[in-house]
């Protein structure tokens, strides 16, 4: 009887340790998933952009990256408290106005932010492109973000192309990568 109890306790201990190791491995793999996107794009690959479905800041419903398939998408990650985000907001708005009638969508993804602050930011900088709220930080790990702002470019097939811009994006970077996303060959 005592031997059985001992074996059961040992099995339970091994099970708990295995579970914790599995959880750790899952977390490491999930984190690396986003980081791996960078190296793939640099190597000339076109990895599939992680699909997200997030609430629009203006309360008009949810927007999914899947819904934008067939268009080039500029995905800009930002927050209202981030100073460089304020610097790049007019540049992004100008690019939106310039490209919006040519199968291009600029999408702002606001994360780690208060909703009221995000709304004030949008009003203050006259942002008219769609802004989504990532309340649960879902995109942070999946897009391998390390700070704000950061910008990725998605081609018509839903693949990441061009540069992953860390820091405020410039008009030249936007034009160059949008053209790449529009004309990206299969």
């Amino acid at each position, binding site marked *: 009887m005592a031997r059985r109890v001992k074996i059961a306790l040992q099995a339970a201990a091994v099970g708990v340790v295995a579970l914790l190791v599995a959880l750790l491995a899952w977390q490491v793999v999930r984190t690396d998933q986003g980081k791996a996107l960078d190296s793939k794009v640099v190597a000339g690959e076109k990895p599939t952009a992680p699909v997200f479905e997030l609430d629009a800041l203006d309360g008009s419903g949810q927007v999914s990256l899947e819904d934008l398939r067939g268009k080039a998408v500029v995905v800009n990650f930002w927050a209202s408290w981030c100073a460089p985000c304020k610097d790049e907001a007019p540049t992004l708005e100008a690019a939106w106005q310039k490209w919006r009638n040519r199968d291009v969508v600029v999408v702002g993804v606001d994360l780690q932010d*208060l909703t*009221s602050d995000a709304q004030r930011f949008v009003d203050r900088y006259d942002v008219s492109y769609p802004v989504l709220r990532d309340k649960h930080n879902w995109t942070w790990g999946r897009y391998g973000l390390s700070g704000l702002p950061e910008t990725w470019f998605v081609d018509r097939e839903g693949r990441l192309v061009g540069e992953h811009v860390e820091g405020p994006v410039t008009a030249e970077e936007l034009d160059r990568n949008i053209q790449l996303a529009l004309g990206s060959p299969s």
Partner: protein
Amino acid sequence: MKRILLATVLVALAASGAASASEQHPTLAELERELICPTCHETLAVSTSPIADRMRSYIRARIAAGDTKSEIKASLVDQFGEGVLAAPPKRGFNLLAWLLPLVGLTIAAAVIAVLARRWSSGRGEPAPPDPSGNGRAPIDPELERRLDEELARFDA
């Protein structure tokens, strides 16, 4: 015994009264200890990040507006997810974070109890000596049988 019981009841009542006051009229300091900055993952009490400053302003405004502690926390969870709470909520998968330490302590206590009982039973009264053994431990019957056989063979 009655005094201990009375003291326990009084302490419990005082604690529940304090908890209720804290729920209805929370302070910034206690909420700062119970909430996490989403960028640096430190409590608001120690974080100096820009979003922590904004969250403190938000909490101050909500307290001034008369919100309860639960309402303020729920509002921040709605905007940042459950990761904003310093302690996970006691429901769903998060319940594991509360239960596992208790389960671990219970198992450890059970193991210690079993080991202690085994150890103490091993140190019980010694068995009475075999009268034929001159105070030494009795011989194993199998060994005794083999010894007898060997002696008989030797005698033959």
